[in-house]
């Protein structure tokens, strides 16, 4: 089972006296996992550790059962698109991907075929023979993505992969990440754009100051945050009536009518009790409900509840 997981066991990494990450234990299943946290929270350290670019001070890491200090095995199943915006000098987009594919010991023909396929994947076929130095920021980001995944890895690690991409390329990249996640690959993404993280993630890992603050599916993480009342948005025909019934309950902290008079935003410490009450009100008062939806079980809300408003992502 652990051969299909990325595991961190009590992993710490210090840079001299400076903390990178501390005592992190994680188990990452296949699918899209987002790493979220402010600058310096340890996202890149975590990625560099699992890809073998740096070594842990303490603890053990396994990527599909492979220790990261065996690049000859690890890098066949893993591709890492790092944040560094640097490329070997004087090299074209095609040469960049092809040259590093040669290190996999493949034949010329296979390297050529894979290079062309990955350039096509990121829409750079036309620019393949231009020097990477002449690429725009978005093109450089795309060629890095193509290079990192040209060998068709099972684990794809992407550090801020959407940086510099225009909206169209961004949505295309997200579609690829989803496809990879759907195929059962591990896709680890760090991003500071929380609504995009929300769109693509199967699970999130929230980091702050080198510690894992929370991990798992975002709704699950949200429900664990007991000290912050849940926000629920209800669209119905009699919001005032519902509000009156709700105020009789201890667990309801706040209820606000929406300006159009057809909705209610409430904050409750016990979502389950609220849903039971709502069912009763619907039956008793013939309430017509258009929609009921949690209003703060997104990454943005959870991030701010757990890490704080003041932190820059």
């Amino acid at each position, binding site marked *: 089972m652990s051969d299909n997981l990325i595991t961190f066991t009590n992993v710490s990494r210090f840079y001299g006296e400076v903390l990178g990450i501390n005592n992190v234990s994680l188990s990452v299943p296949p699918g899209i996992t987002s790493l979220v946290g402010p600058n310096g929270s340890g996202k890149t350290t975590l990625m560099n550790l699992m890809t073998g670019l740096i070594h842990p001070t303490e603890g053990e890491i396994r990527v599909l059962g492979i220790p990261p200090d065996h*690049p000859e095995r690890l890098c066949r199943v*893993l591709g890492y698109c790092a944040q560094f915006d640097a490329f070997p000098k004087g090299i074209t987009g095609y040469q960049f991907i092809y040259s590093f594919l040669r290190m996999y010991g493949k034949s010329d023909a296979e390297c050529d075929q894979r290079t062309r396929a990955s350039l096509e*994947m990121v829409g750079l076929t036309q620019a393949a023979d231009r020097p990477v130095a002449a690429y725009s920021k978005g093109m450089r980001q795309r060629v890095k993505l193509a290079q990192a995944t040209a060998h068709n890895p099972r684990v794809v690690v992407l550090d801020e992969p959407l940086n510099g991409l225009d909206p169209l390329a961004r949505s*295309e990249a997200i579609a*690829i990440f989803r496809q990879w996640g759907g195929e059962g690959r591990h896709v680890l993404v760090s991003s500071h754009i929380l609504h995009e993280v929300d769109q693509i993630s199967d699970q999130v890992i929230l980091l702050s100051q080198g510690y894992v603050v929370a991990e798992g599916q975002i709704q699950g993480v949200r429900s664990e945050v007991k000290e912050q009342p849940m926000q629920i948005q209800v669209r119905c025909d009699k919001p005032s009536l519902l509000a009156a019934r709700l105020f009789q309950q201890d667990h309801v902290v706040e209820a606000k009518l929406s300006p159009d008079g057809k909705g209610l935003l409430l904050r409750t410490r016990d979502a389950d009790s609220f849903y039971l009450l709502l069912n009763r009100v619907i039956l008793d008062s013939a309430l017509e409900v258009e929609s009921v939806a949690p209003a703060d079980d997104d990454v943005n809300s959870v991030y701010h509840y757990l890490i704080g408003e003041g932190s820059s992502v």
Partner: protein
Amino acid sequence: MSSEPLAATAVDTAVRSNGSTGEWLRQVGGVLRLELKKTFLSRRGWWIYCLALGPFAIVVLHWLIELQRSRGVINGRHSLGEDSIAFAGIFLLYYLRAGLFFGCMGIFANLFRAEMLEKTLHYYFLTPLRREVLVAGKYLAGLLVALALWVGSVAGSFLLIGRHFGTAWSEYLWHGPGMSQLGSYVLVTALACVGYGAVFLMCGILFKNPFIAAAIVWVWEGINPFLPSVLKKISVIFYLKTLCPVEVPVPPPFNVMVTETDATPFWIAVPGLLTVAAILLVYSAISAKNAEINYGE
């Protein structure tokens, strides 16, 4: 953008791959190709080409001047033996002490250090290359470039330095000691590239600023004639000098400070240098294995 489906079988096969000798050779070939593309004839290395071609250009100039002399345009001539000693002086004082030393420093110290400065080393570290194979590939690429430049320069200069003597020079080359001397110079040059290459490759991996370490090595090699015989032997230049075909005397007043040491026989000097280079390369490989990507951020 579009994506191809996951080729699970191929990937699983890859996971089981432990790296055969054939695969390592292909990988070394891949590193060689990329390194040669990046470094050979790159604009960054212009000063190394100047160092290598400088003496050759001077010898060409010397040949042209001597041609003028032979036509009586310029007065005064010298002997073939004097040219041979002059070349020995150029070889020892310029090639070994300066040009080749700094040229190898520029080539080999930058194999890893320049990639750290340009933030591109992680691309190599993220391929299924054993770090030992990476060190071997980079060293071979550096060695090929160094040999092409320096052996080419030394051989070209030697063949041209007495060219103006015409048939006498041809006789010297083909029926005298010429070819044997050329062979010795080429061997010493190749060994210098091997030895200094290993030293500077290691410096490039171990030190943030390998040029400070290189300066220390240079001073150490420079004061070698004046060191006690035990310390003399802890250097590259000592063994190279003993392999040179023509001895160059140290001029006064420095000659009084020179300490005499028995020359090391050929069968010790050559394998000894190769062994030292191999030890340095093994140490470099171990260091590379433990190296981390830290671009100073």
